């Protein structure tokens, strides 16, 4: 064995020893090159790409031992006094959102040779991105080296409505250590969890002696070491609507992958080996994988008395949603046509590239600090306080840069055991999920079976609709009922129909839990509803666009279905304009027959959707905005930028109100000790609710500044104007810096803190059209192009909104065409990796035309509405509708993988 490895990284020599099993990725990260990101560790995603002697490689599957005498270049080495051309291009064209894929993308892109965009997309196959939909990435690469590029505006310019660059950009394109796992306190221990090999079992006995005896193991915890207290992992405000059915560690396991015991050790590897040394005697119980079987109640998944808020534990029903209006019987009696179908939606995974990771430790003054990749720091703080009986003030939760979440980090999954271990050992502890754990032990989108029965008049008016969803929530009920509520509420609410009913049943099974996922149930319901509408159109021989226009709600209508306490409201409405834009963009002609060329058939399809902006009266945002002694502003908000760019948009809002620019506003976010409360980043709420809080606070600060200035310079407030760095009257001027210092002398604070909830949750609407090509020989669907229009109210930062739209659309594309967690009879997930669970790559993505339709909403800041989730809903139904138009085949099950399409076509033949 070579004694030591001699090699260079970014022209700096290294001489180290390492274990033969180490990957180059681990070696580089241990040497401090944090820009090399760990995502799949199997060569499937490209986030770890570095150059080996100038050639891009995946460092995660390159044995460190082979690096001897080679030259490595990482993202940190590209910058040479200034950004490399590719880094600059990514910055200029904003080829990133959360930034987790960015270093790898840049390393690969810098060495690509291609002759066309199609070739470029194909060449980029080794690099995955989950946020952007690739459009901005491709634009960046294509623009690289183009000197005539119109330089983007900077933070010095413009405010609301301008494409201010995402302010975290420079850190992300250079691979700075900004994510949770990139920093830790000294003396860190690592936590690993032994997971259940059985879908349903009681732990009779558990023996940890051997594990504890292993050198390097600090402690082992089982259910015997924790207080038995039921809670929900869902990140919701108190009182939580979810069943309280989860335990830190339990004497029962309810799915393959459920937690059995936790080990903390000096290294992850030791902890993993120790897990294998734990001896567990399981009493294997019968299990239920399928919700319909589970509802019979032969197997009871939550039979423990401590759990509460479960709808009907004896039948494994976690929750039930019933919505009704009008009278179905009367409605159906009037109908000329009644259609009834069932749609099958799979469980899918978020695949945020950064895994769940938390680090906890005790501060000098005994404060428990939790550094975590979370969308909900304040809910996390509350839960930890309840679980461990520690006052909230003694717990600080904060989040560094987030590498994506999509709902899966609106969940408290990794913080709890970290904290347990820190409290028991007194030492800093980190818990990082492996990619396999992400796939098998976090949450999925709820798999559902949705039956819809619709009655229509022959001329197309919908007169009755009955919808029923069976929603598989897996082993725990987190988010079950709230998600399943939206499955019926939004799709049904979108259409004017006097007689509607919805029943959603949330069922426990012995599978991985389902949870929050972009679209939050509406995605599933939209597929069913929008598919069926097209079937009706085809049966009645009505143009599907016309049928929709005839039945869609408008400003004149009230939202009739739902629950009153949700206060969904049409604040602004531009869905008609959305439809017009999309049909025009695709040159839609209802008379045109679908094209057929040999084995290729083409068709177009459409879908509509709506989604609310935040939760009315529940989603609370507090912000604090202050004028600092240096004459600049500081904005503090507990809100979480998941990578979308909300930290930039919020500063734009403040800048607009204060007559200044983003550059003059520092932002401090998502830290329970240093920022005021915010419910967190979910339900498309940040722009609408936190944004409005910032707007109101900035307005208040503005008046306050003017008033104070008026006192100091002794003029009337009305005479004064605030702009950029000063307040001026007709005669006198006072600079903000002076003002701040003057106020300080007088002991006055130039600071405003306020709380905001919205009385109304404004609805955002969207419409999508796609053109597809179906290869009738292979069943392969290719989306040729698509156009989406979103009724966004006001785009605070159009480029950021555009990125949300393309990212959501492509996430929907994966849901439509490829993604599905596959379970065996035991409920074990058979494709727990990026190789077997495919998310779209650049070459899977069609050209996308996005229209942001701006019609100001009275409730949002500057008229803005939420946009975070809506983009995901329409892709699958629009594609299914296009396939039906092209081939006559109606696909009612996702994903529409080639063999399903093909088999459906065989049946038709």
């Amino acid at each position, binding site marked *: *064995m*070579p004694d030591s490895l001699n090699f260079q990284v970014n022209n700096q020599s290294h001489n180290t020893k390492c*274990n*033969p*099993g180490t*990957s180059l990725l681990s070696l580089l990260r241990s040497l401090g090159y944090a820009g090399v990101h760990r995502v799949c*560790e*199997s*060569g*499937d995603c*490209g986030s770890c*790409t570095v150059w*080996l002697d100038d*050639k*891009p*490689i*995946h460092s995660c*599957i*390159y*044995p460190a*031992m*082979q690096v001897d005498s080679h030259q490595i270049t990482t993202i940190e080495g590209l910058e040479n006094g200034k950004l490399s051309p590719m880094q600059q291009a990514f910055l200029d064209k904003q080829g990133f959102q959360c930034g987790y894929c960015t270093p790898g993308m840049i390393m*690969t892109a810098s*060495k*690509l040779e291609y002759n066309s965009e199609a070739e470029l997309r*194909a*060449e980029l*196959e*080794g*690099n995955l991105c989950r946020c952007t939909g690739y459009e901005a990435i491709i634009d960046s690469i294509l623009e690289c080296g183009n000197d005539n590029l119109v330089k983007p505006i900077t933070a010095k310019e413009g405010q609301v409505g301008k494409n201010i660059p995402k302010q975290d950009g420079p850190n992300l394109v250079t691979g700075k250590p900004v994510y949770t796992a990139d920093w830790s306190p000294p003396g860190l221990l690592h936590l690993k969890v032994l997971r259940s*090999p059985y879908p349903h079992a009681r732990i009779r006995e558990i023996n940890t002696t051997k594990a504890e005896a292993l050198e390097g193991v600090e402690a082992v915890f089982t259910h015997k070491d924790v207080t038995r207290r039921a809670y929900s992992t869902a990140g919701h405000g108190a009182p939580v609507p979810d069943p309280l059915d989860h335990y830190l560690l339990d004497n029962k396991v309810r799915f393959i992958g459920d937690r059995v015991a936790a080990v903390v050790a000096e290294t992850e*590897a030791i902890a993993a080996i120790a897990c294998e040394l734990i001896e567990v005697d399981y009493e294997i119980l019968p299990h239920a994988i399928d919700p319909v079987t589970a509802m019979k109640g032969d197997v009871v998944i939550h039979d423990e008395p401590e759990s509460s808020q479960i709808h009907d534990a004896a039948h494994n029903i976690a929750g039930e949603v019933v919505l009704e209006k009008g009278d179905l019987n009367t409605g159906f009696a009037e109908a000329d046509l009644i259609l009834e179908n069932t749609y099958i939606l799979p469980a899918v995974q978020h695949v945020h590239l950064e895994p769940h990771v938390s680090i906890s430790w005790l501060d000098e003054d005994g404060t428990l600090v939790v550094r975590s990749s979370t969308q909900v720091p304040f809910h996390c703080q509350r839960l930890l306080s309840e679980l461990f009986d520690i006052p909230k003030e003694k717990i600080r939760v904060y989040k560094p840069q987030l590498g994506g979440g999509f709902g899966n980090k609106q969940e408290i999954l990794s913080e709890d055991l970290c904290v347990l271990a820190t409290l028991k050992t007194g030492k800093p502890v980190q818990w990082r999920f492996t990619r396999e754990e992400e796939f098998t032990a976090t949450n999925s989108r709820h798999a559902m079976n949705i039956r819809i029965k619709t009655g229509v008049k022959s001329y197309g008016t919908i007169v009755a609709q009955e919808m029923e969803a069976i929603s598989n929530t897996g082993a725990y009920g987190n988010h079950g009922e709230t998600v399943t509520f939206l499955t019926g509420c939004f799709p049904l609410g979108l259409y004017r129909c006097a007689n509607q009913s919805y029943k959603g049943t949330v069922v426990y099974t012995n599978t991985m839990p389902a949870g929050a996922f972009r679209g939050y149930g509406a995605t599933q319901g939209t597929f069913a509803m929008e598919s069926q509408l097209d079937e009706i159109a085809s049966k009645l021989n009505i143009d599907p666009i016309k049928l929709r226009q005839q039945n869609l709600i408008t400003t004149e209508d009230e939202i009739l279905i739902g629950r009153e306490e949700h206060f969904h409201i049409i604040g602004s409405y531009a869905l008609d304009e959305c439809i017009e834009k999309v049909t025009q963009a695709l040159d839609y002609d209802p008379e045109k027959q679908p094209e057929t060329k040999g084995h290729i058939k083409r068709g177009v399809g459409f879908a509509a959707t709506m989604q609310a902006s935040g939760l009315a009266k529940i989603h609370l945002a507090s912000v604090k905005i202050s004028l600092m002694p240096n004459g600049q502003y500081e904005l503090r908000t507990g809100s979480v930028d998941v990578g979308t760019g909300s930290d930039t948009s919020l500063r734009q809002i403040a800048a607009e109100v204060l007559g200044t620019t983003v550059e003059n506003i520092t932002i401090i976010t998502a830290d329970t000790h240093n920022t005021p409360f915010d419910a967190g980043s979910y339900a498309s709420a940040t722009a609408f609710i936190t944004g409005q809080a910032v707007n109101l606070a900035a307005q208040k600060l503005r008046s306050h500044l003017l008033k104070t200035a008026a006192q100091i310079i002794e003029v009337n407030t009305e005479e004064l104007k605030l702009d950029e760095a000063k307040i001026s009257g007709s005669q006198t001027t006072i600079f903000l810096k002076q003002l701040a210092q003057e106020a300080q002398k007088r002991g006055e604070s130039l600071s405003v803190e306020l709380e905001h909830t919205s009385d109304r949750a404004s609805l955002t609407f969207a419409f999508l059209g796609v053109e597809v090509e179906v290869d009738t*020989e*292979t*069943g*392969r669907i290719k989306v040729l192009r698509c156009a989406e229009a979103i009724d966004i109210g006001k785009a605070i930062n159009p480029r950021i909104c555009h990125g949300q739209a393309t990212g959501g659309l492509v996430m929907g594309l994966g849901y439509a*065409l*490829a993604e599905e967690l*596959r379970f*065996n009879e035991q409920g*074990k997930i*058979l*494709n727990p990796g990026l*190789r*077997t669970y*495919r998310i*779209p*790559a*650049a*070459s*899977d993505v069609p050209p996308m035309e996005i229209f942001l339709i701006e019609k100001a909403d009275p409730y949002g800041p500057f008229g803005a509405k939420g946009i975070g989730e809506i983009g995901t809903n329409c892709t699958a139904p629009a594609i299914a509708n296009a396939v039906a138009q092209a081939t006559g085949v109606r696909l009612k099950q996702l994903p529409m*993988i*080639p*063999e399903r399409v*093909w*088999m459906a076509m065989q049946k038709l033949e």
Partner: protein
Amino acid sequence: MKNFAYVRPNSVEDAVSRATSDRDALFIAGGTNLVDRLKVFLDEPSQLLDVSRLAMKQIATTNEGGLKIGALVTNTALANNIDVRNNYPLLSRAILAGASQQIRNMATVGGNLMQRTRCPYYYDTAFPCNKRQPDTGCPAATGINRIHAILGSSDRCVAVNPSDMSVAMVALDATLEVQGVEGKREIPFVDFHRLPGNTPERDTNLEPGELITAVILPPVSFAQSGVYLKLRDRASYAFALVSVATALEVSGEQIKNARIALGGVAHKPWRATEAEEFLIGKAANKSNFEQAAEIALKDAQALAHNGFKIELSKRAIRRALAVSAQGGGEA
């Protein structure tokens, strides 16, 4: 990963002798397949013999007018080699249809031909698997088997070989040059990979300790007509559900020579000899291609979830042959 030693043999002979004396040693070249396997404990070698620095990186023209390709030539270098692109375009396309740029930059010819199946049950040590641990059972046979074999499988193993390059190599009648302690020998490519039979743990006919040193391609006069058609779940970076390599020599209306090989359908790259023979002397038309496809798949057997692959393979063969008949190119 378990602990193991890491050794850098200083010659082919040294490597072979070490591997022969320690049956638990494994060669490592690019590492892209092996490291992946070590991570999930599929292999637990005593030592890794790093052959990546040995001199087997040349591509040379042979006296017969073919090519001799060193086992350590990277996939990228082979796909971009001018002689390969001109004379064996099908090989170049097959390689580029596989993996990613980053992996092709590391992956070697020898390693590619030796890569092991991607059967998810083989990859997951929580399951039994006859390939991983003889006589433990084959959960794929009754489990989710949509990607599994439709040809030549046994009741002990239904895995498929994932290599794209191998499909091209078998279509091109390549020969392997391997070295053992006794010296060099050659193995025709068609005989290199094995069917599972009762010993699915053995993928190839390489003897313990033997190292692949080169692949030899004979000249193929009609290789220009070569086509590689890969059908998979997404547009890129996925293993084949079914892939087809074809080449045709057509003179006038008549087929003089035909090559058909299938990937993703069997435990080895599958040469459809009978279908090739059928085509010889026939006209290059749709109905003959259809019949050839029927012949190629006539012994195919479906498992619970992979029946679609039979019809898919037939269609792929027809389409690839049609393009080959037009002189080759993208199918």
